[in-house]
């Protein structure tokens, strides 16, 4: 008799008129419980697939950039390297870090966690990113002891979206090998042109800083007049200045400056 009780109870509840208070509470409870169960099961079982997708996408973007870098294929063949070395660096010291796991490294998570990021003051926050992650995953290619290529992930707040990119520097750590925009949501046909190969082709060969070490590379309106300037996109002033700010910030003291210093001294 005891086993029939829950079923009998259920039938009794169902038989109640829809407006009764017990029914209202019971229905609210049942619908919430069933919905929550349904959603949680889906979320938990699909999460690994979703994470794998995100990781695969980032890797694909990186591979695409490497495939498009002029001359990189030859450099890779010469140095007998098949892939780039991945190094996690600490931006506060400039040195490599052993404590974090490379496979699950996510720069966005690091930037969001107060324990592993630094809040930027208004003067420091040129790129509009609010917090700076204390760790970053960079890619280094060496031939023996000589640096051939360094790839740095950078990002900034664009006109209406976050702009994510990879900045590739040649061995002298001052000449740009390539700038590849991996994610952006700027105005189609205007700001979104930063993601097109035609605009990104303007970057290889540009220099970051002058002989004094002052960062001078910027995106300018009108024509670019030197190796420190890149043509902006007409009609997309805000997006262009966001890219400028991105370079200015990440090449500056709050960005990768210490890392570049350590790389030059062979400490990484």
């Amino acid at each position, binding site marked *: 008799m005891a086993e029939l009780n829950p079923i009998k109870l259920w039938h009794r509840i169902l038989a109640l008129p*829809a*407006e009764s208070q017990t029914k209202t509470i019971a229905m609210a409870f049942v619908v919430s419980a069933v*919905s929550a169960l*349904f*959603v949680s099961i889906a979320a938990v079982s699909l999460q690994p697939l*979703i994470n794998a*997708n995100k990781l695969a*996408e980032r890797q694909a973007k990186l591979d695409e950039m490497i495939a498009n870098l002029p001359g990189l294929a030859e450099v890779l063949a010469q140095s007998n390297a098949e892939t780039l070395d991945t190094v996690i660096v600490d931006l506060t010291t400039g040195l490599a870090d052993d404590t974090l796991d490379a496979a699950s490294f996510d720069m966005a998570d690091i930037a969001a966690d107060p324990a592993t990021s630094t809040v930027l003051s208004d003067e420091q926050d040129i790129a509009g990113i609010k917090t700076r992650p204390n760790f970053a995953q960079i890619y280094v290619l060496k031939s023996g002891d000589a640096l051939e290529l360094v790839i740095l992930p950078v990002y900034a707040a664009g006109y209406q979206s976050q702009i994510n990119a990879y900045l590739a520097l040649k061995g002298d750590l001052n000449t740009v090998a390539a700038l590849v925009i991996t994610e952006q949501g700027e105005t189609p046909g205007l700001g979104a042109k930063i993601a097109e190969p035609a605009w990104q082709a303007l970057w290889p060969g540009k220099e970051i800083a002058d002989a004094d070490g002052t960062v001078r590379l910027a995106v300018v309106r009108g024509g670019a007049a030197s190796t420190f300037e890149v043509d902006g996109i007409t009609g997309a002033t805000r997006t262009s200045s966001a890219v400028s700010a991105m370079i200015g910030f990440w090449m500056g003291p709050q960005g990768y400056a210490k890392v570049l210093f350590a790389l030059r001294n062979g400490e990484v």
Partner: protein
Amino acid sequence: MARRNFFTPLIDENPVTLQILGICSALAVTTSMTTALTMSLALTVVLMASSGIISAMRRHIPAQIRLILQITIIASLVIVTDLILQAFAFEISKRLSIFVSLVVTNCLVLGRAEAFAMQNPVGRSILDGLGNGLGYSLILLIVGFVRELLGLGTLFGWAILPTVDSGGWYQPLGVMLLAPSAFVVLGLLIWAIRVWRPVQVEPDEYPLAEARR
């Protein structure tokens, strides 16, 4: 009767062009046919499932919490659909982002739940959901067709009109990718439908008098 449920929402009682339901997402995702198609599929599936479930429970839903119960059911279905999209069609899910979440408050799903599923048996509700979903999809695909073809020269990503950038003759109409064009294209589409089906024309409230000679 069932066939009526299915065919009427396609043109005669189209949710977008006549009932004014489900427009928000109809405009935003039509910049390319791929996103339009994915959104249509997602919405039709959610619409059918929610109409079916709500119809099955219709006698047991208390009036006071009716709205929030319906929304809970629809929201759960939408969340699961979103997760499935992220797991199996990641590229597309990124472009649809908040609009899949907005299917929850999509007036179409809630509107049909209130207007039909609450008063009709399960089988007919599901069919009604399918019909309205297809009516919605039809409009989305037509608008998407126009906007993608004229705005990018492509359809589903395949180049149809060779653009000047890639060495062809077609200069894409950039405005088709921006918000205003969606409104205008939809307005013109409604005009075309009402010329074809004059019964949908709205009455003139202040007709002009004949000019006196």
